[in-house]
């Protein structure tokens, strides 16, 4: 194991986050705060409580998930796409570094940033609504697992993308709609029966449901299924990454 290399890449990526603090931390915090102001305080006061929880508080896990998914993907995809774009990937490919080490360092750094971001948003939310976390360890588990899983997904997108617009397409066309429709802003049991069934085909429902359960003990689907789905995604993306490196897809001629 080339630990020096893993540390070098990890530090490099974290330093990048430090330089782009505005983009990676402050802007998600501001947009999340706006959600709280608009939906939590302004509109939320007119929305009845869900399962005995104020609408503002109900929003917290979903909003954290929303940021977590988009930022994990954005961070990890950019992290690996940029060296491809500038050509500095030559150095990574010529270094005595295994593919596993590359993934661990890039995905690890992106996931770390997401976890930090999630915790910052959580703290920000605490300023707007009364918070309770019923199962803190589960909360952390979901936070970390989701960050890792979607950083891995971002890594795949970053390797697949051959232009800046492709980096945006999947987060914009798939992740954001799925998150908005996946119960970030509502419990799926308020939907008509048909759409409740349809919603179960949306993988993000399971992520948000499990995460929300760790806060309030309420869930759209059982927490075991949520965990299984999260791990399932992790396994799927890991398999895709393994295939990418085995074939050299879009990295190595």
């Amino acid at each position: 194991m080339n630990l020096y290399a893993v540390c070098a890449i990890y530090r490099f990526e974290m330093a990048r986050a430090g330089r782009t603090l505005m983009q990676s931390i402050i802007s998600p915090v501001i947009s999340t705060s706006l959600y709280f102001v608009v939906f939590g305080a302004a509109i939320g006061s007119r929305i009845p409580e869900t399962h005995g929880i104020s609408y503002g508080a109900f929003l917290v896990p979903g909003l954290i998930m929303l940021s977590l998914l988009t930022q994990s993907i954005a961070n990890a995809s950019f992290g690996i796409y940029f060296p491809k774009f500038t050509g500095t990937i030559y150095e990574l490919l010529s270094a005595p570094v295994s593919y596993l080490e590359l993934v661990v360092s890039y995905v690890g750094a992106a996931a770390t940033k997401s976890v930090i971001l999630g915790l910052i948003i959580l703290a920000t939310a605490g300023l707007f609504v009364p918070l309770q976390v019923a199962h803190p360890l589960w909360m952390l588990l979901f936070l970390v697992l989701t960050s890792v899983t979607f950083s891995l997904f971002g890594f795949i997108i970053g390797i697949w993308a051959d232009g800046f617009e492709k980096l945006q397409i999947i987060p914009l066309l798939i992740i954001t709609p799925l998150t908005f429709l996946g119960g970030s802003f509502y419990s799926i049991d308020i939907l008509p029966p048909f759409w409740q069934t349809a919603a179960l085909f949306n993988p993000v429902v399971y992520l948000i449901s499990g995460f929300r359960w760790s806060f309030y003990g309420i869930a759209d689907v059982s927490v075991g299924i949520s965990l299984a789905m999260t791990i399932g995604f992790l396994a799927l993306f890991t398999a895709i990454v393994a295939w990418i490196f085995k074939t050299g897809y879009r990295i190595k001629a």
Partner: protein
Amino acid sequence: MQPIITISNLSKSYASGFQALKGVNLEIRRGEIFALLGPNGAGKTTLISTICGIVNPSEGRILVDGHDIVTDYRAARAMIGLVPQELTTDAFESVWATVSFSRGLFGKRKNPAYIEEVLKALSLWDKKDNRIMTLSGGMKRRVLIAKALSHEPSILFLDEPTAGVDVELRQDMWQLVRSLQERGVTIILTTHYIDEAEEMADRIGVIRKGEIILVDEKAELMRKLGKKQLTLQLEAPLESIPSELGGYELDLANGRSELVYTYDAQGERSGILALLQALNAAGIRFKDLQTTQSSLEDIFVSLVRERK
């Protein structure tokens, strides 16, 4: 001595079907400066990229100091430093950070003293805290060299290192290459400036259309393929070469006012004396004479043309 790099039967075909390398066999000797010459698109960069692990070989095998570049890539790559042809650098990092990053990437413990030495040798020390994007092209080239040297490689690849570089940097670079060689580093370079290869290299390889068409000691190459010419400036232009001089390889040049005699530099007898006597006998007088020897460039151009 065992060669430091052994390339056997290496072929590379890209997905487009283009065959960049065709059955290349090449050995690089420990501690030498090897110059790889070839026209654009001949496969120089593909060959270097394959050895360094950036391009997958389609066929064949490469050993770096006995380590297979595929199965034992860690040991092989740890020995190699690569300075790529393009100025591909990070933009926002400082010089110090990017060079230290390279050292870590190649699995070496931090060594600020060594990095300092490298930066000073490349006149980058006073720029160490500058962002790379603020540097000039020549300075970026120096940064790439510093990155390649950051992990103390025993083999250094320089892919067109002096393309678009000013005279000062060229000289600095060659001085650096010489001092690295003195420390036992093997250097493989590609260049467009053949005079540099002529000046620097111990051995020369010529690659054309993915095939190594020739590898030889530089001195041997120039001796074998070099031609000498004797140019005589005539007092009066000649209409044609007199028939009594038909036994010599003669040409008229410069508006028939010069007679050029081409002879074999390694031949036992140059035939100059006999020619001069024959000229005298034919009553042809000359004002001046000079001899020239073909440069590596002439040899290279004739080699590449010959095989077209």
